[in-house]
């Protein structure tokens, strides 16, 4: 709206009371995601930081290869660890991305489009990652050794 239109509409009195702010339908979802961001964040401190320290400082990127990964994944505990890490990180990140999209992309159509793309990419990634971890069969890899 132009400034002029805005200002010229002012000959009317301001009335107290009765002002209705459009109520968002997703209130409960907002509380949930707010809470989820904190909880997943706290869980991620353990998972993500341990993951970083292990691969970057203990193993060292220079020494990384498929073998090392496979060895580690042979242990179901570490596979579960990774499932949790991937799931929490991606969902947490997805919701974070939603915050940014809702902030910066205000045109409705465009917003829906971008959301669809980002949600799809993240969810597909999540499926790929989790599927790989869950269907991983250590036995089939011992041949390489």
């Amino acid at each position, binding site marked *: *709206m*132009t*400034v*002029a239109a*805005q*200002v010229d509409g*002012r000959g009317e009195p*301001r009335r*107290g*009371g009765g*002002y*209705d*702010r*459009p*109520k*968002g339908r*997703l*209130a409960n*979802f*907002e*509380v949930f995601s*707010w*809470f989820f961001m904190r909880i997943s964040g706290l869980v991620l401190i353990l998972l993500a930081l341990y993951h970083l320290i292990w691969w970057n400082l203990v193993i060292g990127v220079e020494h990384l290869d498929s073998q090392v990964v496979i060895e580690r994944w042979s242990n179901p505990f570490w596979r579960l660890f990774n499932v949790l890490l991937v799931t929490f990180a991606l969902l947490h990140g997805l919701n974070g991305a939603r*915050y940014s999209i*809702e*902030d*910066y992309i*205000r045109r409705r159509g465009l917003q829906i489009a971008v959301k669809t793309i980002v949600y799809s990419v993240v969810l597909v990634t999540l499926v790929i990652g989790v599927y790989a971890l869950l269907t991983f069969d250590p036995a089939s890899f011992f041949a390489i050794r």
Partner: protein
Amino acid sequence: MPMVTLRIQRFDPENDQRPVYREYAVNADPTDRVLDAINSVKWYQDGSLTYRRSCAHGICGSDAMRINGANRLACKVLIRDVGAKVTIEPLMGFRVIKDLVVDMEPFFAQFRSVLPYLINDEGAPERERTQSVHEREVYDDTTKCILCAACTTSCPSFWADENFVGPAAIVNAHRFIFDSRDKAAAERLDILNDREGVWRCRTVFNCTEACPREIRITKAIGEVKKAILSSAR
């Protein structure tokens, strides 16, 4: 008296396509208010410079504006605190009516939307309702608000979304939610438990830093969030 240069954003929708910056040199004491310097421009150099002001001592909330990039009351910043060259712009996020005057109607609409008045339908006693010193203390901070809008217009969540109810409205809801005499906390919490309510706040603290009354706004918002969470249980 040393010279100070004021670089002021001017915009007159009757004549201008877009805002321009104009510079004015004025004599000002270090202990003068920025408002005094602006006044002296208006009174003796360029009468068309337009802004709101009234009390001149930080109590009426008229002259919130962006001074050197951050929201301030022009009457509560002294020249000695801003240096020899000051940039002055209108609050961000509201429509500019002229120069430093922005349209405050949406702001007051946000304020009105949180039931900013005491609700207590139980018959009033003969004398005052009593309230312990501690009960009074709990919401003391948020009673200081002068509705200057410095907070709301400094909030990135508000810049992004003008439907966000904004820190000022939450502050004024807090003032009643935590008043032991009020009976409508649940209703207000329900209003604020909304995607355009407290959950839009990303604890950026710009509001707290901007508040000329030094209200700990983000803390008040945090208390409201907690109240919503614990009332949901």
